[in-house]
């Protein structure tokens, strides 16, 4: 009976399932445009790669020949994928000054807390694996 009623356009419009295509349009367009803009301006990727290499070179020596810079589709989201094999990491004396400064921002505190939590849980698991949950 219900499905019969829904065959009437006005009822279908009022009570039928909501069809959403707006989000699909938005996401598909965004994905297509990343590709478009990249093909139209291939120098974009080269320029981006150069800047990233310049940045990483302050911390490590990268294997530039085997580095990968790509825009890929990851679960429907355009993602910048960067893979840089490291030949060696700089010693302390070669790092930029900022990298050695002790940071006391909230972010770093949170990270540390998170780290301790993880470690604790692992210890628990080791000592008593069956009692967990």
């Amino acid at each position, binding site marked *: 009976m219900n499905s019969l009623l829904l065959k009437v356009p006005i009822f279908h419009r*009022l009570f039928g399932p909501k069809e959403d*295509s*707006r*989000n699909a349009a938005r996401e598909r*367009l*965004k994905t*297509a*445009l990343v590709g478009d*803009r990249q093909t*139209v301006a291939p120098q974009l990727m080269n320029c981006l790669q150069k800047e990233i290499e310049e940045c990483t070179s302050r911390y490590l020596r990268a294997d530039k020949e085997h580095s990968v810079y790509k825009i890929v589709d990851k679960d429907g989201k355009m993602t910048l994928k960067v893979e840089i094999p490291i030949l060696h990491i700089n010693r302390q004396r070669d790092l930029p000054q900022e990298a050695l400064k002790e940071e006391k921002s909230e972010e770093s505190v949170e990270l540390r807390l998170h780290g301790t939590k993880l470690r604790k849980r692992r210890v628990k698991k080791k000592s008593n694996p069956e009692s967990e949950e």
Partner: protein
Amino acid sequence: MRKGSNVGKVIVVTSGKGGVGKTTATANIGAGLASQGHSVVLIDTDIGLRNLDLVLGLENRIVFDLVDVVEGKCRSFRQALIKDKRFDNLSILASAQSREKDAVKPEQMKKLCTELKDAFDFILLDCPAGIEMGFKNAIAGADEAIVVTNPEVSAVRDADRIVGLLEAAEINSIRLILNRVKPGLIKRGQMLSVSDVQDILNIELLGQVPEDERIVHSSNKGEPAILDARSKAGMAYRNIVARIVDPATPMVDPQTSIWSKLRRVLTTDLGAQVG
């Protein structure tokens, strides 16, 4: 003849995709600017597919066209301009119907635009669809651009490409008109919203024009919708014109009539009861 003291502004109206409403936009903005006392010339740069004259009801008065002007077949551009019936300060330069797209070169368009700048406040160029020669001609002499698009994936994608090309041509002022907006569909999640399109294209929004059946009615009669007091699209174009003249003018939301508000209230309530 001119209202302002500075040289005129050359604005190209473009879109990439065809059929999104470039010619209608050009005609309405032109008529709107003229109605406010500015001297305006509209140039149809779509060689081979002449249309602007028809939309404005001036199709029977063409003697010379754009190609005649650049080829020097008439004494000056003034001889080829067709004066509008309604506004003294609005003229159009029709495109050639029986010629090829390459009959005009970008340098010639640039030269013509420079000449026109001394005589008019606004020079609006109605650009052909596509990104080939016709497009290159139309943007050659432009200072600013208005990109017209519809809230549809294909139109938005083409608009993005056009924005890229305009940027490459160093046209720095690029503004967007979102045409054929259907607020009901957006509300039901079946159409890209104004903010969606703006977010994707990332350019300044000049205005939004709602889908309006009266636009067809206006074109049928060869009268711009901006002169039609009952047209919703006409109202939107009046706001767009005000924003071109003074960018500080706030943008109006076309959905502010009592009926649309009432309808919105009714449908939302019904939807809530079911959900």
